[in-house]
């Protein structure tokens, strides 16, 4: 298991090594390199950004902006807080933040699972495109703005203007929602959607802490899908 100390090595060195992991050179001989440990991250930016391999990266401390940005296949665990844009545009794999996350967590994520065990700040899940995001705490204002697809699951509450201008993403919130954004409404979930939520909770490792029936579902009223003069006041 490689240990990378970011007090003495650069983020560039770390990412270059991670990007060098390919199925081709990761036969039996190198299989032990699928588990990496990063120490002294010191809030540095772009740690483990651009992973494209099913490695597991344990980061022992806080990370800066864009940790695990555009992650594909990788599993990244942050034992600390995360800065802006953690797991932005993630394609697949899993990112788990043991602490809190700053704004734009999981922004534009296409796939995979992002779990934030603390709270997430503003714009969590902004423009999400298929990613599943689970926040054990609460999320800040303007979260899921223009969210297109995927599930945002919040065990706590949500700030102002949740789901403003939302497309087809599903927003599950267990606690209070300060206000809904334009074209975002509460919806009655189907049994299939409840099952989907249960699956997301299960994959996030949340068993017993919260039950699917405790969540309310918010989504698009679809009234702003076409420009119409009667909707001008909504923008």
């Amino acid at each position, binding site marked *: 298991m490689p240990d990378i100390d970011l007090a003495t090595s650069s983020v560039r060195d770390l990412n270059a090594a991670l990007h060098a992991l390919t199925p081709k050179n990761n036969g039996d001989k190198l299989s032990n390199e699928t588990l990496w440990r990063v120490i002294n991250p010191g809030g540095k930016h772009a740690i483990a950004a651009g992973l494209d391999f099913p490695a597991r990266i344990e980061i022992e401390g806080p990370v800066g902006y864009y940790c695990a940005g*555009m992650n594909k296949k990788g599993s990244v665990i942050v034992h600390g807080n995360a800065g802006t844009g953690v797991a932005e545009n993630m394609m697949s794999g899993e990112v788990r933040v043991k602490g809190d996350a700053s704004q734009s967590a999981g922004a534009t994520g296409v796939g995979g699972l992002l779990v934030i065990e603390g709270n997430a700040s503003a714009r969590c899940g902004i*423009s999400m495109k298929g990613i599943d995001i689970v926040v054990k705490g609460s999320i800040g204002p303007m979260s899921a703005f223009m969210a297109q697809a995927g599930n945002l699951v919040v065990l706590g509450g949500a700030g102002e203007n949740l789901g403003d201008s939302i497309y087809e993403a599903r927003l599950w919130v267990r606690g209070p929602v300060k206000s809904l954004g334009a074209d975002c409404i509460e919806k009655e979930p189907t049994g299939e959607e409840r099952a989907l939520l249960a699956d997301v909770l299960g994959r996030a490792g949340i068993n017993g802490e919260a039950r699917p029936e405790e969540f309310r579902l918010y989504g698009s009223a679809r009234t702003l899908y076409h420009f119409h003069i009667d909707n001008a006041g909504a923008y």
Partner: protein
Amino acid sequence: MSDAPRTPPRFSATFDPYSIAEIQRAAATGIYDIRGGGTKRKLPHFDDLLFLGASMSRYPLEGYREKCGTDVVIGARFAKKPIHLRIPVTIAGMSFGALSAQAKEALGRGASAMGTSTTTGDGGMTDEERGHSSILVYQVLPSRYGANPDDLRRADAIEIVIGQGAKPGGGGMLLGQKISPRVAKMRTLPEGIDQRSACRHPDWTGPDDLEIKIEELREITDWQKPIYVKVGASRPYYDTALAVKAGADAVVLDGMQGGTAATQDVFIEHVGIPILAAIRPAVAALQELGMHRKVQLIVSGGIRGGADVAKALALGADAVSIGTAALIALGDNDPKWEVEYQKLGSTAGAYDDWHEGLDPAGITTQDPNLAARLDPVLAGRKLANYLGVLTLEAQTIARACGKSHLHNLEPEDLVALTVEAAAMAKVPLAGTNWIPGSSF
């Protein structure tokens, strides 16, 4: 009825026929006009500049014998793999979605034949455009529609779009007629909706954040790719300086004449500044930072002929970018479709309802029958021809000014025909040594 002469009908200069028609249209529909293209108003432009050419004190080059270089390298500041263009004319970002797949292929074919780059747009990269573009610039836009790390890595350069000249401060739109199943899938949107694109990036705010965003993109692509920052011309001095500070390899500066696939007419006509007014402030910022020719400046908005290319370069740009002109070269607004333009309430040369997806030329459409009208091989050839002419014309002027490379053109080669152009371009009014606003 008296035979005495009557006062003839007189139209108001303020309430001219177009303004009256717009008031009537607005009153009838209750919504603003949306259209494609760039500003149509008359603006100070490259037409207001002239080259002086060689004379007693300047030595010209022989037109057909002495070399005049045209190449440009972009991205050597930080990228491990800068791109090398044979000509300083690139194809601006235009999306599959706004354009048909045939049009995107034709752009790639034409640009590749001339050794220059083409650019993706909102909605991501298609395999066809990657396949037909030898040098492809990948746009990272606020919407991030279709964004993914694989396309970042298979691009030759990355362009972070902050704004465009037709609508600085505005997001994109693509109306439902053009959200075909394939476009919808690429953008993760329901089919047929009127798509909105965000005007701000979702995960960074301001130049300090942009610096970190650029760092992330460099990390993801292992510092291989040049990274451009594209801005709509509004505050070019500060935007250029901040882009340099944020770590850009190149700055793309788009004047208000630059086109759009679909935007409110009021936005196109009233926000932003002409490219003529934007180049010198941007160059000044680069020079003050010691970055002129190190961070490349690519300018766009209203480039039509080789004289425009030469003038832009003489003012300090490293390259120009074309969008509208490239579409015209492919076949947009071709008089052969006049009957159909008239059915759409327009005429060849004025057709700008690109957002409706009914383009008779098969370029700004997702209708398979219309799109099939555009032969991408022939259209690509026409674009290559046009790019060739732009280059030859620019070389002709440069040689007349005694320059062995287009980049050797300089402001000293230029004069202005109007006080406004002289002030904006910071070159003397023709026949004088007066530069308005200059202290000497």
